[in-house]
C-alpha cells in the first residue's frame, strides 16, 4: 500500500514539475481532452495540435558520426520531404451540391427500372389486386399426406423428454442482414459513388479556378450554340414544345426588360460612371452594357408602323433620333467614336449646351440646315418614286384608256404632296447634324428628272395606243384580246407585286357581279380590266397581315364510316318515298304533328334576324311613356334586319333541316382517336358493339363489362414489391412506345 502511495506521490510531483517547465514555454497549447464522450459528431474544438511530436531533424542531427549514418539521415529527411500536401477540400456548399447531384442521378437511374412495370399496369385491360397470388395448384394427395406423421406412444414420450430444437439453427442463419457477397457488392457500390463524387468535385474545382476571360467567353458561346441546336432539333421534332419554349424565352426576356439590369442605374454602373471620366476602357464597358440593355428593351416588331406603311409606303427616315449625339439610347453601335459623345462631363456639357442655345437663336443657320436635310430626304424619296412610277408605267401600258394618263398625273401630284409633307417633318426637328450639300444642284436635278419622266411616259403611251389601234383594226377584238390576256396577266402579277396601291381608282366602270360561272360576251370584253384588278385586291389585304402572326391549322379528316351530312341534305332534295300512312290516325291521342309543327316554327323563329334598335330614348328630345321617337331618329338608329333568306325546308313539308352547325354540339364530339385505338374505324366499331347480355352471349358480356381494377373484398392490397420486377410478364413487356410515352409525361 505504501509503495503505491509513494508512486502516486512521485507521479504527482513529476506532473507538477512538467507543468511548471512547460509553462516556461510561452506558446499556449490546447490539450487533449481528458474525458471523451462517444458522439457521432466531431467539433473542431476537440482537435488539438500535439506539441510533443518527435522532431525528425533533431533525431537526424544525432546521426552524423559515420557515413552510413549520414546516408540513413538523408533518407529519413527525404521521406519527410516527399510527403505531398493534400489538396484543400471543396467548400461545403459546393461539395454538398455535388453530393446531391450524384445522389440524384444515381436514384434517377435506379428508379427507371420500374418503367416497364408501370407502363404495363397502365395499359393492360384489367389488373386484379392484390398483386401477389398464392398458387392455387393442388398438391398431389401423396405429397400432402407425407407431411403428416403418426407418432407411436414411445416417440411421443421421447419427445416430451427431449424436445427437438430445429428452429434455432434457422434463426442463426438469419441473424446477418447481408451475406458476404452482398457486403462486398455494397462496399463496391459505395466506393463507386464516392469516386464519382470526388471526380465531380475535382472537376468543379478545376473549372472554378480558371480565370481566363477567353475561356469563359468560349464556354458561354458553346452553351448558347448548344441551346440553339437543341431548340432547332426541338422545332423539327416537336413544334408545339418548341413554341412553348419560345414563349418561355420571350417571358424571360420580358422579365429581364422589366428589371433594371443592364441599365446605368445599378451600383456597378454608378461606380463605373465615376471612373468613366478618366478611363476610356470603362466607357467602353458601360457602352457595351447599355447596348445590351438597348437590345433587350427594343421592341420585337413594330406592328403600328406596318399599318402606317399601308397608307404611304415611304418610310420616314429617323434622322432626328438616330443622329442625336446627346441620347445614349439611340446610338447605332457602341463604337469608340460614339463613346465620347455619350459621356460629356463638365466643360464639354456646358459647351454643347451653349451650342444648342446659339442654334436656337440663329434662325438662318437653322433654315440652312433644314434645307440641306430636306434635300437629302428628297433624294432618297426620288429614287423610290421613280420606282413607283415605273410600276405605274406598266399599268398605263396595259390599260388602254385616255383617262389613265390623267390619273397618273394626279397620282404624281399626290406623291409630290407627300414629299412636301415629308420635308415638313424634317423641319420640325432641331437636333440635326449639318450635312454639307449643294441645294441648287439637287433642285435642278429634280426638275430635270420630272420633265424627262413626263416626256418618256407621254411617248410610251402614244406608242402603245398606236400599236393597239392597229391591232384592233386587224383582228376581231374580243377573240384576240382574250387570247392575249393570260400572258399579260402574268406580267402584271409580277409587277404588281411591288408597291402599287393606287390601281383601283383607274377603272371607273362598275364590275358586273354574277353568280353564274358561264361567261357572257360582254363580260369577256371587260376581262382585261378585271384581271388587272384581281391580283391587287388580295395583295392589299395581305399587306395588313403580319406574316409571323398566324396559326398553322392542319385540317383533320377522320375517315369515318358515317355518311356526310351534306350528302344527306342533297338526298332530301329528291322526291322522298314515303309510305302512304295517315300519321294523324296513328297518333290520335298524342298530338305529335302539332308539336312537330311547333318545333319547326321555333326553329324558323330562332334563325330569323330581327331589327336592332340603337336609339337612346330621351337623348335630344323628350322621352318616357307614350312619347314616340321622331321619324328621323327611327330611320337613323334602328338597324334594319337583312332580308330573310329562304330556308331549305320551307316548302318541303314536315321536315326540319338544320342549315347551321350548332356550336354547342362541338364539345360533345370526339376530336381525336383515344389512346389504344389506331384508326377511326376501330374506335367506331368498338363503340357500336353491344355489351348487354340481351344482345351478346353471357361470356362475352362478362368479358366486356369486366372492370379495369378487380379487388377482393376484405383483403389488404400491399404496395408493389421488388419481386414484381422479376415477374416474367413484366419483364417481357417491351412496348417501347408506351414506355416512351410514360417517360415523356
Amino acid at each position, binding site marked *: 500500500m505504501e509503495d503505491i502511495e509513494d508512486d502516486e506521490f512521485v507521479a504527482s510531483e513529476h506532473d507538477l514539475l512538467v507543468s511548471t517547465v512547460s509553462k516556461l514555454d510561452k506558446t499556449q497549447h490546447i490539450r487533449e481532452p481528458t474525458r471523451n464522450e462517444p458522439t*457521432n459528431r466531431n467539433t473542431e474544438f476537440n482537435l488539438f495540435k500535439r506539441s510533443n511530436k518527435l522532431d525528425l531533424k533533431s533525431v537526424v542531427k544525432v546521426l552524423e558520426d559515420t557515413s552510413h549514418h549520414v546516408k540513413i539521415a538523408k533518407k529519413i529527411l527525404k521521406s519527410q520531404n516527399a510527403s505531398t500536401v493534400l489538396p484543400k477540400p471543396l467548400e461545403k456548399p459546393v461539395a454538398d451540391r455535388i*453530393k*446531391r447531384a*450524384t*445522389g*440524384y442521378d*444515381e*436514384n*434517377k437511374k*435506379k*428508379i*427507371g427500372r*420500374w418503367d416497364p412495370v*408501370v407502363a404495363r*399496369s*397502365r395499359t393492360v385491360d384489367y*389488373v386484379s*389486386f392484390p398483386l401477389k397470388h398464392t398458387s392455387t395448384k393442388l398438391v398431389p394427395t401423396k405429397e400432402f399426406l407425407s407431411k403428416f406423421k403418426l407418432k407411436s406412444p414411445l416417440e411421443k414420450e421421447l419427445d416430451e423428454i427431449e424436445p427437438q430444437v430445429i428452429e434455432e439453427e434457422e434463426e442463426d442463419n438469419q441473424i446477418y442482414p447481408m451475406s458476404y457477397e452482398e457486403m462486398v457488392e455494397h462496399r463496391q457500390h*459505395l466506393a463507386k*459513388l464516392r469516386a464519382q463524387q470526388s471526380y465531380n468535385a475535382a472537376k468543379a474545382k478545376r473549372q472554378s479556378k480558371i480565370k481566363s476571360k477567353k475561356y469563359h467567353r468560349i464556354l458561354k458561346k458553346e452553351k448558347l450554340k448548344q441551346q440553339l441546336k437543341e431548340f432547332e432539333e426541338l422545332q423539327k421534332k416537336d413544334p408545339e414544345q418548341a413554341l412553348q419554349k419560345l414563349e418561355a424565352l420571350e417571358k424571360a426576356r420580358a422579365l429581364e426588360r422589366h428589371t433594371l439590369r443592364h441599365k446605368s442605374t445599378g451600383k456597378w454602373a454608378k461606380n463605373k460612371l465615376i471612373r468613366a471620366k478618366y478611363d476610356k476602357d470603362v466607357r467602353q464597358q458601360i457602352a457595351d452594357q447599355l447596348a445590351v440593355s438597348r437590345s433587350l428593351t427594343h421592341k420585337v416588331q413594330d406592328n403600328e408602323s406596318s399599318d402606317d406603311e399601308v397608307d404611304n409606303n415611304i418610310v420616314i427616315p429617323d434622322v432626328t433620333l438616330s443622329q442625336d449625339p446627346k441620347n445614349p439610347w439611340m446610338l447605332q453601335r457602341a463604337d469608340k467614336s460614339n463613346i465620347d459623345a455619350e459621356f460629356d462631363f463638365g466643360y464639354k456639357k456646358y459647351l454643347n449646351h451653349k451650342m444648342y442655345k446659339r442654334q436656337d437663336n440663329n434662325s438662318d443657320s437653322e433654315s440652312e440646315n433644314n434645307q440641306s436635310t430636306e434635300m437629302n430626304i428628297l433624294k432618297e424619296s426620288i429614287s423610290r418614286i421613280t420606282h413607283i412610277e415605273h410600276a405605274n408605267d406598266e399599268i398605263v401600258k396595259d390599260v388602254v384608256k385616255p383617262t389613265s394618263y390623267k390619273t397618273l398625273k394626279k397620282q404624281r401630284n399626290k406623291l409630290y404632296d407627300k414629299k412636301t409633307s415629308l420635308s415638313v417633318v424634317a423641319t420640325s426637328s432641331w437636333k440635326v447634324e449639318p450635312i454639307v450639300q449643294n441645294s441648287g444642284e439637287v433642285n435642278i436635278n429634280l426638275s430635270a428628272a420630272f420633265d424627262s419622266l413626263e416626256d418618256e411616259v407621254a411617248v410610251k403611251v402614244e406608242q402603245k395606243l398606236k400599236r393597239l389601234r392597229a391591232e384592233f383594226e386587224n383582228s376581231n377584238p374580243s377573240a384576240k384580246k382574250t387570247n392575249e390576256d393570260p400572258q399579260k396577266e402574268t406580267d402584271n402579277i409580277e409587277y404588281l407585286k411591288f408597291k402599287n396601291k393606287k390601281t383601283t381608282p383607274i377603272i371607273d366602270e362598275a364590275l358586273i357581279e354574277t353568280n353564274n360561272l358561264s361567261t357572257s360576251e360582254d363580260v369577256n370584253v371587260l376581262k382585261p380590266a378585271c384581271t388587272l384588278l384581281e391580283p391587287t385586291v388580295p395583295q392589299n389585304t395581305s399587306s395588313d397581315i403580319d406574316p409571323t402572326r398566324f396559326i398553322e391549322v392542319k385540317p383533320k379528316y377522320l375517315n369515318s364510316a358515317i355518311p356526310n351530312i351534306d350528302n344527306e341534305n342533297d338526298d332530301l332534295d329528291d322526291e322522298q318515298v314515303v309510305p302512304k300512312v295517315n300519321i294523324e290516325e296513328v297518333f290520335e291521342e298524342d298530338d305529335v304533328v302539332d308539336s312537330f309543327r311547333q318545333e319547326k316554327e321555333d326553329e324558323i323563329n330562332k334563325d330569323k334576324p330581327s331589327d336592332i334598335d340603337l336609339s337612346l330614348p330621351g337623348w335630344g328630345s323628350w322621352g318616357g311613356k307614350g312619347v314616340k321617337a321622331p321619324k328621323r331618329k327611327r330611320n337613323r338608329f334602328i338597324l334594319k334586319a337583312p332580308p330573310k333568306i329562304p330556308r331549305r325546308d320551307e316548302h318541303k313539308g314536315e321536315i326540319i333541316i338544320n342549315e347551321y352547325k350548332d356550336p354547342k354540339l362541338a364539345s360533345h364530339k370526339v376530336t381525336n382517336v383515344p389512346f389504344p385505338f389506331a384508326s377511326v374505324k376501330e374506335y367506331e366499331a368498338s363503340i*357500336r358493339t*353491344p*355489351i*348487354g347480355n*340481351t*344482345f*351478346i*352471349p353471357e361470356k362475352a358480356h362478362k368479358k366486356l363489362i369486366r372492370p379495369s*381494377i378487380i*379487388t*377482393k*373484398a*376484405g*383483403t*389488404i*392490397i*400491399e*404496395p*408493389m*414489391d*421488388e419481386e414484381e420486377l422479376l415477374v416474367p410478364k413484366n419483364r417481357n413487356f417491351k412496348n417501347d412506345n408506351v414506355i416512351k410515352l410514360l*417517360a415523356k*409525361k
Partner: protein
Amino acid sequence: MSNIKIKVISRNPEDYLRATKRDIHKLPRNYDPSLHPLEAPREYVRALNAVKLERVFAKPFIGNLDGHRDGVSSLAKHPSRLAVLASGAFDGEIRIWDLAVRKCTRNFVAHEGWVRSLCYTPKGDTFTSVGDDKTIKSWKAEVESPDDEEPINTLLSMSVVTGVTHHRIKPIFATCGEHCQLWENTRNEPVKVFKWGVDSLHHVSFNQVEDNLLASCASDRSIILYDCRESGPLRKVVMELRPNALAWNPMEAFIFTVANEDYNLYTFDVRKLNHPVNIHQDHTSAVIDVDYAPTGREFVSGSYDKTVRIFETLKGHSRDVYHTKRMQRLTCVKWSLDNKYILSGLMK
C-alpha cells in the same frame, strides 16, 4: 291398333335444364343482330338508367366515430388489420378504433399539446406518435397487460417534431421538424440528420416501393427529396405556394402527389421534377391532406373547403366529391387498404 304418329316438339334437355340447382336458369336467346334493330337505343337507355341509379343510390357516408373531445389531427391505418384505426387529437389524446363495430377500443392521453402525427410499424405490433411536447413515443398496438398502457420507448427531440413515417422493411423511421431525422428503434439519438436550408418541415413520407426514398414538405414552399442511405438530400422543388402534404403512389415507384395551398394537387415524377406530370384542380380552398388508394389508380384529398374529393391519378379533375352537412374542415384523409373505404378526420 293403328299406328298413329303424333308429332311432338323434341328438344335437347341440355338446352333448357340447368346442371345444378345453384345455376341460373337457362334462357334461350337468339343473338342474331337483325332481330334486334333497336339494340343501340336500348343499350343507351340502359346505360343512362344505370348511371342515374348509381347516383340516386349513392350514399357514401357510412358513419362517424364518436368520442374525441377535440378535433382529430392525425390518422394512421394498421398495415395488416383492416378494422383497426388509430387517431390523434388536438388535445393530445390517442384513440384506437374498431371500424367493424365502430367503437373505440382504447383511449389515452399521449402528449401535451396536439398529436402531430401517427404511424404504425410495418409489422403492426407497435405504433409511433409525435407531439407538440418534443417527444417521440412508441406504443404497443395491443394491450395485454396493464404495463402495455405505458409507452415502450420515449425519445426526446431537441425541437418540435411535426411528422413521422416508417420505413417499409427496415426498423427505421423518419421524423421532420427543424430537420429531417432518421431514427432507429433501439437508439436514443437520431442515426442521421438531413439538413438543407433553414426552414422547418411539416410533413414527411417514405416511398413504399423504392423504400430508400423519402420526401418532405418544407415551409419555404419546397418539397425535398431524400435518400435515407448515404446520399442524404437529393433535390428540392420550390412551388408557388406551400405544399401541405405528400403521398407516394404505392404502385408506381416514381410518382408522388402533393396537396398544395393553392387549391390544387400536383403529381410529380421523381425523374422530371421541373414540371408536374399532372395538375389536379377542383378544390375551392387549400388542400390539406392527400392519400393514395392502395391500387395506385386514385387518390383522395381533403381540403379546407370542407369537402373530400377523389381524383384519378391520370386525370385533372375529380371523379367524386363527398360532403355532408355536419362536416367541418378536413385535417387528414386516408384510403383504407382494401380499396373500399375512405376515412377522414375533421376539426371541431
